[in-house]
């Protein structure tokens, strides 16, 4: 009987994956699993997921203040070569979401003014056309921790 209960529990919990909780909920927007990584002192990348529970909105910019210069990129692979492409806007229709993840959308921070270490937290402002700025406290992780975080969010089903 115990094994029956255990099996049922696994199924009900979606194969053991826990539903992700948003880190920030503001103006109808939910931000999940923010994570920053920094491979060298003057450069960093930021990943997160956003779900829009309100009306259709557009992510128009990302800002980290004096910490550095932020820009949104995505990765395209053509003719055997991967290249980064700047992204001006990301429209997020009502009830949908977008996940920033390796090989896809990412925020690149250039000219980072202070070295970031695992355990630090930075503030990343996501600027939306309608909702305005949403500040996201973003932990600095190791690459392995970031990859784990991104994969957990992908598997959670939190991003429609």
């Amino acid at each position, binding site marked *: 009987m115990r*094994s*029956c209960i255990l*099996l*049922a529990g*696994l*199924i009900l919990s979606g*194969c*053991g994956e826990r539903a992700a909780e948003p880190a920030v909920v503001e103006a109808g927007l939910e931000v999940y699993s923010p994570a920053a*990584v920094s*491979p*060298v*002192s003057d*450069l*960093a*990348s930021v990943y997160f997921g956003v779900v829009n529970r309100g009306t259709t909105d557009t992510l128009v910019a990302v800002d980290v203040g004096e910490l550095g*210069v932020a*820009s949104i*990129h995505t*990765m395209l*692979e053509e*003719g*055997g*070569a*991967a*290249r*980064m492409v*700047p992204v001006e806007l990301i429209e997020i229709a009502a009830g949908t979401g977008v996940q920033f993840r*390796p*090989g896809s959308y*990412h925020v*690149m921070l*250039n000219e980072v003014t202070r070295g970031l270490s695992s355990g630090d937290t930075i503030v990343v402002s996501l600027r939306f056309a309608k909702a305005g700025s949403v500040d996201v406290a973003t932990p600095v992780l*190791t*690459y*392995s921790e970031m*990859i784990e975080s991104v994969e957990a969010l992908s598997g959670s089903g939190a991003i429609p």
Partner: protein
Amino acid sequence: MIPVLLPATLACLGDPPPDPGEIRGATYVEPLAKPDFVLTATDGSDFDFRTETDGFVTLLFFGYTHCPDVCPVHMANIASVLDELAPRVANRVKVVMVTTDPARDSLPRLREWLDNFDTGFVGLTGDTATVNRIQRELRMPPAFAQETGDGSYAVAHSAAVVAFTEDNRAHVRYPFGIRQADWAHDIPLLVERDWSGL
């Protein structure tokens, strides 16, 4: 009750495990010869690729330190898996990154970047003509710089890691998207299988 629930539970575990002998990387129809080149290592010394990597499984990647996404993720995945593998396997693997951005990747910067992942990873730099020649020999498009519109540039480059085995040929390459579980599965096979007759 168990007969009803068991199939659903098995489905949660994903596809049936692959044949342990089946490599997860992309195999070349015709294995590639190990390219012959000498580039400069991060300590300033000459690094003769064929001599220095002879007898080792060698994972060769072309990337650059301003690469925010593909390059560090590959390096982090490989480093994490090598940390977990038995030393008798991990000690037979060398990881070599050749910069595709020699103008910005000074030797100290390349070293700082690689040390984030593993202090044993080899970083190499050299003239563009040589690096382009190596990429062509490995059937990769030579990397090229591309303006990003903000006064800076990114470098388009192959996102694949080429794996040379002890027979000094490459039978397998690993495109971006390969996961740690795949590396953990394949690296012991790259080390322990006899690839010489394949």
